[in-house]
């Protein structure tokens, strides 16, 4: 797998993005999926939920086609994940198809994912046929229409993203109204596919900017995206939530997902909770990273997630190699062990945290859901900061929210910015943070420097947990 791969038809592969004429009809693709001889992602998720197992899925994507095929096959042979992924490269995500093609032809190893649009749908089908598990496209495209068309033509039955969650963390200058419109088109096609008999799982990227995202922000944005998706005709929605690292908070957040679905979504929609193993700064030590990987998987089980997205012990270093990916999957799978039935979380504390999460989410989403034009309301709310995320990559969110870990490590609002949280919720957040009596390093000088130091400390939370203190600061 080293050395330059001569891409079959690399010249042709570059007619990107293929016009719709080049693609098979939706009907043909639906028939193709029916004849593929594998379950859809939605079926796998449903089965996992029914059996009480957490389905397991890696992140994986490399530039070259043969390399991608080998990667999928190796992962399946050695770790048998329930679902497999095509992670798409960053050029394709931003419709920089020219750059994707150029890099692909120069050295596919320079791509941080699989440029599916560039490779084209026939190769997508080839990948799909190489493995028994259904595939999901994971990317980060504010406007994923071209990619989605190729995905459907490839017979791929799960597609991640949303007009908010794949805009704010993934691009700088795409107006939210544009990304919402683009994703509405995607979701409408899902609706049409459902009518044709194919349920495409649409996963919402509640992980957002991944670093210190307060659960109620993640869940509120997912609720809004889910409502929009359901209205457009989507029938299977996976709500992804990223591990904060705090047991009770994470279990409560996961358990809130079915309740939020009941509260805000029409009954005909299948909703799954998906857990992302810790998406922030990963410890560097292999043993530490593996402790965190297993813990994440166990939390997914305790929270009743239908699916877990895994990490690897190479997370802190770069895109993992196949072996690390396999080992990450295998380790996570241990948390599904029948021998761990006895492991439990404090039910009262989870119930309490869950109530607060539901209340905060209600504070944020209900003013939006009341409005006639939800898309317009969202764009407006982001502009005014009544919907917001920390560390936005995009200009179209204010990023006034300042998150902070409390003494126990749960993520709270140090400042909720302009989020319409109730006085009760704000007082609780304040109270929990005042309980924070951490002392030491830099606590003496107040103001910006100390805020930065605190924030950095919270970002590097797991480095501290594992005593990897040499990686602790940016200043």
């Amino acid at each position, binding site marked *: 797998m080293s050395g330059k791969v001569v891409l079959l038809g690399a010249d042709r592969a570059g007619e990107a993005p293929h016009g719709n004429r080049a693609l098979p009809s939706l009907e043909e693709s639906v028939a193709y999926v029916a004849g593929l001889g594998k379950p859809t992602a939605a079926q796998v998720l449903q089965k996992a939920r029914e059996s009480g197992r957490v389905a397991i899925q890696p992140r994986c994507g490399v530039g070259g086609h043969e390399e991608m095929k080998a990667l999928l096959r190796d992962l399946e042979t050695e770790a048998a994940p329930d679902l497999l992924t095509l992670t798409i490269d960053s050029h394709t995500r931003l419709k920089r198809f020219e750059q994707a093609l150029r890099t692909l032809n120069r050295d596919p*190893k320079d791509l941080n994912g699989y440029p599916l649009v560039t490779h084209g749908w026939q190769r997508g089908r080839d990948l799909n046929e190489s493995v028994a598990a259904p595939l999901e496209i994971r990317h980060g495209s504010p406007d994923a229409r071209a990619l989605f068309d190729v995905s459907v033509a490839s017979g791929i039955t799960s597609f991640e993203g949303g007009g908010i969650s794949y805009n704010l963390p993934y691009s700088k200058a795409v107006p939210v109204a544009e990304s919402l419109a683009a994703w509405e088109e995607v979701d409408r096609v899902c609706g049409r596919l459902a009518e044709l008999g194919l349920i495409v799982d649409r996963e919402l990227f509640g992980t957002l900017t991944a670093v210190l995202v307060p659960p109620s922000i993640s869940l509120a944005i997912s609720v809004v995206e889910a409502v929009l998706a359901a209205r457009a005709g989507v029938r299977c929605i996976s709500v992804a939530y990223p591990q904060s690292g705090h047991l009770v908070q994470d279990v409560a957040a996961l358990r809130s997902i079915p309740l939020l679905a009941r509260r805000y979504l029409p009954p005909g929609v299948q909703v799954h909770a998906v857990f992302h193993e810790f998406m922030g700064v990963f410890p560097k030590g292999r043993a530490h990273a593996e402790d965190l990987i297993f813990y994440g998987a166990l939390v997914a089980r305790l929270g009743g997630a239908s699916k877990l997205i895994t990490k690897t012990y190479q997370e802190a270093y*770069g895109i993992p190699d196949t072996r690390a990916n396999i080992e990450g999957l295998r380790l996570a799978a241990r948390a599904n062990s029948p021998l761990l039935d006895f492991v439990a979380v404090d039910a009262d504390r989870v119930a309490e945290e869950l109530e607060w999460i539901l209340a905060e989410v209600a504070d944020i989403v209900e003013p939006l859901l009341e409005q006639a034009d939800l898309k317009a309301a969202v764009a407006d709310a982001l502009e005014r900061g009544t919907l917001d995320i920390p560390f936005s990559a995009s200009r179209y969110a204010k990023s006034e929210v300042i998150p902070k870990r409390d003494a126990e490590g749960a993520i709270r609002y140090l400042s909720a910015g302009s989020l319409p949280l109730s006085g009760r919720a704000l007082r609780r957040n304040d109270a929990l943070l005042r309980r924070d009596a951490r002392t030491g390093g830099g606590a003496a000088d107040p103001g910006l420097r100390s805020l930065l130091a605190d924030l950095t400390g919270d970002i590097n939370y797991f480095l501290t947990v594992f005593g990897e203190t040499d990686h602790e600061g940016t200043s």
Partner: protein
Amino acid sequence: MQQRKIILGVAASDAHAVANHLIAHALRGIGYTVVNLGTCTPVEEFAEACREHPDAEAVVIGSLNGHAHEDLRDLAAAKAEGAIRCPVVVGGNLSVGSRKDPSALERLRRLGVDRIVSDPAALPAVLDELRAARSAAEPLLAVS
């Protein structure tokens, strides 16, 4: 004394925002004026900022997603045609994969990257050095 100024941003295909936010805050904290272009910034946009801010001491670019080389491809031309005159500092995770090949840094230098810095804490010292080197070099240039 005039405030020191730098232009900051993240490479074109890269949306990783956190380090960018923190570096901007930290440099502002020690007195810099930071023109922060944020994530997903093509070379062209850095060049434009250089035109608008001729007093900027350096262009400081982060890249985390492994695409540094392709994203900075136009840097050679921008430097050659004088669109970017000040030193270019790059930091982050500069190639794809968990095992890093030093040649990845070499090819960035060939594109015109002046300094590759891994720890943001080293930035102030690096910026001081670069300024010292420039003020030493410029009178010479003026003479020749």
